[in-house]
């Protein structure tokens, strides 16, 4: 009962902030005035804040910024031993540095390393955590550019990437993180530059209590749907998640931006009800997933959970089973990938849910920005399917969905499944699946989970598998890179194509896209597309394990 109340209060809190926080985001992004600090940044960066960019220029700006970020972070990781606060750790090996640099720039935050034994404090805060901010901002910027495409009337331009990046960071992410960090510090998270303290335990043994700027990194880790933990065990670590209420707060934070962005969408296209329709689709899928995950874990099927009496292996006492399961669902429904319990030890079907959440394309509500643009692409596909059924030219928000738009939307949808399934197959073909810890169907699940997580830029794992080998680091790095930037380029191309169109007036044949019928159709199309794509893979892994 307490577990369901935990979920219900999260829903209530998200409903309560939808309008005010969404409106705040809208004003932050679409205002015409620059703050003094922002003008200073534009001068330092050397860009003209008033210059509008075509989709091509916008995309090239995103790619240039991300490429430079990967290069910078890679070099930073490679020379950390020569810088301050390295805590005596050596330079990060080439393949792990590549994997980690790509992972943090793509908002995946997959961790092939163990934080407390690999990363010094400087590289954590000035390398990894900076990408936590800006990769989240990039996602939101791309989503906003797509919405501008829907809202535009015959223009060639989509806004200015540098302005979007700066405003989202300075007006939204940083002020929120300042507040959250303070709350987290009061809750007991550490925030220091200490290399750790050796203490003598009660029985006379020595224990090394670690330090670090954890609270400040934790704030953006959740708010930016990043998920890269300061420590190996992420949000299960008492320094990253000390109490049951910080657990609630972390779940709220990782959901709040993705669930509020549909409000921005509604405001920008001038019809709030369109935003409500999109957020309704997200909510239906999310609530169903959370309920199933919590239900499966409370039921506790499987030999070991039955022997134990509950599915508590890999879960902390202070969180308990239902709250841990809620975290697992929320972190994979978004692109966060932080964990407060270890999915590998979940019941077979409870552990399948996080995989399914990611396979949905992380659109319910998805990552910061990536969730909104992912769901809008699915809405475009739905409009097209509906158009086929009644034999009319499909249109969405007054924009015709023609051949070019459908090609871009279809390609967008195909990118991730291709990467996930090809990657999984490649691991088995090359024998690299043998680094899995578990055997049988569960071993396959570990491999499938790894590529699903990388392809969808999630970052959580069935963590038993060993992935810090050169093959895994290289393969997953490529999958993360392509899984992030191919969809972004396609989305921006779609935005450019929509922006050029003159809106067509609504007619009798127009499918209303703000009514329950459409909401149900988008949810249905999403589930059907995913089921058709991934059911065979799931049947070999978690389904085989759960039903045997």
């Amino acid at each position, binding site marked *: 009962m*307490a577990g369901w109340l935990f979920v219900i209060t999260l829903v209530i809190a998200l409903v309560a902030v939808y309008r005010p926080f969404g409106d705040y985001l809208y004003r932050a992004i679409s205002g015409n005035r620059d703050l003094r600090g922002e003008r200073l*940044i534009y001068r*330092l960066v*050397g860009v003209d804040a008033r210059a509008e960019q075509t989709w091509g220029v916008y995309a090239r*700006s995103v790619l*240039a*910024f991300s490429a*430079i970020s990967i290069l910078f972070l890679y070099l930073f990781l490679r020379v950390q031993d020569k810088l301050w606060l390295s805590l005596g750790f050596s330079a990060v090996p080439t393949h792990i540095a590549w994997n980690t640099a790509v992972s943090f720039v793509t908002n995946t935050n997959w961790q092939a390393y*163990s934080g*407390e*034994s690999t990363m010094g404090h400087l590289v954590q805060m000035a*390398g990894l*955590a*900076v990408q936590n901010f*800006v990769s989240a901002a990039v996602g939101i910027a791309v989503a906003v550019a797509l919405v501008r495409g829907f809202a535009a009337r015959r223009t060639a331009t989509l806004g200015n990437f*540098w302005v979007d990046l700066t405003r989202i960071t300075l007006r939204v992410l*940083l002020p929120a*993180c300042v507040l959250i*960090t303070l709350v987290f510090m009061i809750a*007991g998270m550490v*925030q*220091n530059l*200490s290399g*750790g303290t050796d*203490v003598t335990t*009660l029985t006379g*043994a020595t224990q090394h*209590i670690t*330090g670090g700027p954890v609270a400040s990194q934790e704030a953006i880790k959740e708010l930016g749907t990043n998920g890269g933990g300061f420590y*190996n*065990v992420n949000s*299960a670590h008492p320094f990253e998640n*000390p109490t*049951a*209420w910080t*657990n*609630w707060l972390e779940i709220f934070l990782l959901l709040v931006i993705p669930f509020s962005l549909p409000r921005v969408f509604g405001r920008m296209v001038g019809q709030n009800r369109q935003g409500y329709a999109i957020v309704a689709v997200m909510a239906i899928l999310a609530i169903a997933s959370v309920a199933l995950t919590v239900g499966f874990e409370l039921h506790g099927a499987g*030999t*070991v959970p*039955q*022997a*134990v*009496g*509950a599915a508590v292996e*890999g*879960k*902390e*006492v*202070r*969180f308990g089973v239902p*709250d841990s399961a809620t975290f697992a669902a929320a972190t994979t429904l978004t692109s966060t990938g932080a964990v407060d*319990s*270890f999915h*590998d030890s*979940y019941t077979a079907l409870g552990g399948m849910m996080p995989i399914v959440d990611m396979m949905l394309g992380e659109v319910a509500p998805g990552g910061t920005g990536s969730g909104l643009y992912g769901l809008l692409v699915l809405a475009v596909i739905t409009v097209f399917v509906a158009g086929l059924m009644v034999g009319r030219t499909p249109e969405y928000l007054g924009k015709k969905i023609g051949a070019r738009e459908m090609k871009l939307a279809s390609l967008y949808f195909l990118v991730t499944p291709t990467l996930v399934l090809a990657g999984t197959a490649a691991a088995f073909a090359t024998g690299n699946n043998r680094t899995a*810890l*578990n055997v049988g*169907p*569960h071993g396959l699940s570990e491999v499938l989970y790894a590529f699903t997580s990388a392809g969808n830029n999630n970052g959580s794992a069935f*963590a038993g598998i060993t992935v810090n080998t050169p093959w895994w680091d290289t393969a997953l790095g490529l999958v993360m890179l392509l899984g992030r930037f191919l969809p972004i380029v396609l989305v921006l191309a779609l935005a450019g194509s929509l922006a050029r169109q003159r809106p067509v007036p609504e007619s009798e044949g127009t499918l209303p896209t703000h009514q329950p019928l459409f909401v149900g159709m988008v949810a249905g199309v999403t589930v059907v597309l995913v089921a058709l794509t991934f059911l065979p893979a799931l049947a070999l892994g978690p389904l085989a394990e759960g039903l045997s």
Partner: protein
Amino acid sequence: MRLPMWLSQHVAALRALLVLTVLLGLAYPLAFVAIGKLPGLSGKAGGSLVAHGSTLIGQAFTDSDGNPIPKYFQSRPSAAGKGYDPTATSASNLGPEDVVDTADRKSLLTQVCARSQAIGKLEGVDGSRPYCTAGGVGAVLEVFHRDGLTGPVTRVISVNGPAFMPTYDGVTVESGTGEIPGGVITPIRGDAPAHPVVPSDAVTAGASGLDPDISPAYAELQAPRIARERGISEKSVQELIEKYTVGRALGFMGEPGVNVLELNMALDKG
């Protein structure tokens, strides 16, 4: 000199990244490191340190050989390094059907069974659990059928050690060591009570390997031993447990737990 478009974009990107790194990567965290030095926050920002560790970080109350020290409440099993090592945090990551021991490692099921039996012995209670043998390993058979998955049973092996039941489906159970290809792995429920005496958190590793808490049920189970070892009344131990039990936050978040280090430190204080 005017740079070509593609190059000027990368220059802008580099400048933007450097500016944001100074702001978000240095100014923001370091300001909070400074705030963490303020009185009232410094204890928490420094790791909630007390005389014998950190109240947030669990520790083992065992001797150098890993045996429980009877006068202390025991923590949960830990998968962090050799146990409660903050420099090697980890969960076990073993799955729900990890039931067959191999030469390299014990299965999760056998680990659970062995812990349950050891705790039962330490506390003087019944340590039996479903799917566990009386010998404290996973009760798992490998059943061979004539036609692979179907047909009459031809051979039955107990994969985790000595045969724990005489026959299965009329076929004599052989003792074995590990799985051999061709059979169907079949865990045997046995007749242990559905709600074992030893609580679930006592036989499983947590998520962090640093879990500072145990369930109130596990603390209750240990209370008689603590009272006996220390020559104090069981009632006073119960009172201490109640004092250090933290309920659900706001009545519905998380689960009740007892901080083991705080409890043991209070016991030592007397």
